[in-house]
């Protein structure tokens, strides 16, 4: 039995859980990490000033791809102070989908910066709220200042077909990146 994962990131309320839920075969589940528990996998928690416990919740979904292969989709915890969870999540991940709401583009900057720094393949998915895309893809590309080979596409997080094709684009991008670094 093999499992792989894809990370779904973006600002608060941008549609991460909707995205996960529209394609998942299970109703998205929530796993909770206790902040002090994070030391299980992360080297450095010493910066955490608070000795109490903080709970970080992550939503995730599951897709059976073939008899022996399962794909998990993990929504990132929104707050930036939970980077430690992100380190855990991206470890061994295929890549990430950064969902953006063009009305609040800046909220996606931290995720974009983080994935760039981590060398994780990622794509930008513009979630069209109510089917509206007020800005063009090239506007978004300019505003995000991502490398030109990062795919930027439109999606409707509520629509299974749309999320599915977004995931396909990410996997293709991850393959391209892997072949180019050989």
């Amino acid at each position, binding site marked *: 039995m093999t499992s*792989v994962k894809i990370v779904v990131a973006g600002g608060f309320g941008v549609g991460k859980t909707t995205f996960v839920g529209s394609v998942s075969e299970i109703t998205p589940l929530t796993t909770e990490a*206790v902040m002090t*528990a994070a030391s*299980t996998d992360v080297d450095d928690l010493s910066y955490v000033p608070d000795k109490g416990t903080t709970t970080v919740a992550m939503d*995730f979904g599951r897709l059976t*791809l073939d008899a022996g*292969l*399962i794909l998990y989709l993990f929504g990132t915890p929104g707050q930036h102070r939970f980077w430690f969870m992100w380190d855990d999540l991206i470890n061994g991940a*295929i890549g990430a989908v950064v969902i953006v709401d063009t009305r609040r583009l800046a909220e996606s900057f931290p995720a974009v910066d983080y994935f760039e720094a981590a060398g994780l393949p990622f794509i930008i998915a513009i979630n069209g709220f109510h089917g509206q895309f007020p800005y063009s893809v090239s506007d978004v590309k300019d505003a995000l200042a991502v490398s030109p080979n990062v795919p930027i596409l439109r999606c409707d997080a509520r629509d299974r077909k749309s999320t599915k094709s977004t995931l396909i684009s990410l996997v293709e991008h991850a393959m391209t990146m892997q072949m180019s670094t050989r």
Partner: protein
Amino acid sequence: MPGPEEVDGTPGTDGQETPPVGEGRDSAGKGGQDRPRPEWSSRPLPSGVKKLRGGDSGPPGPAPDTVKSALVRPYAVTGGRTQPRYQLQIEAMVAASHYEVRDLSILGPEYQAILGFCRDWRSIAEISAVLRLPLGVARVLVADMAVDGLVRVHQIDHAHGRPDLNLLERVLSGLRKL
């Protein structure tokens, strides 16, 4: 299959119960320190304020912004250990071993719950979410169970970074068939 590396020396069941903290603090407010009353204390005070006098417990303002709970509690079932015996990814797959254990009742309730839930392959994330165990606790328990042969664990060795091209091909064709 991951090998159970770096088994730490701490036996899982040595039950290092940390005594509950808080005993020492109770006396603080009742000590003699707050005896000298400010002169305004004899004046009538707005209702509610007076109650604080003996306790010295600070203003009844909004609660501290972070909710502090007992550190120990989430890890009580692991004997206080937060480090699993080997690293388990959040998506690592877990299944109960075929040779179902002789007598399940000798196992703790968490072990029983995990074995029951993992009749089919489940991820660490699912174990955590469905059985309502914090992620770190689920990892410690499953790693222990794997070492004891109660469950099998499958996870990709990520020492080499990302999933390889063959696996990505498989993911791609699986997605396309959905």
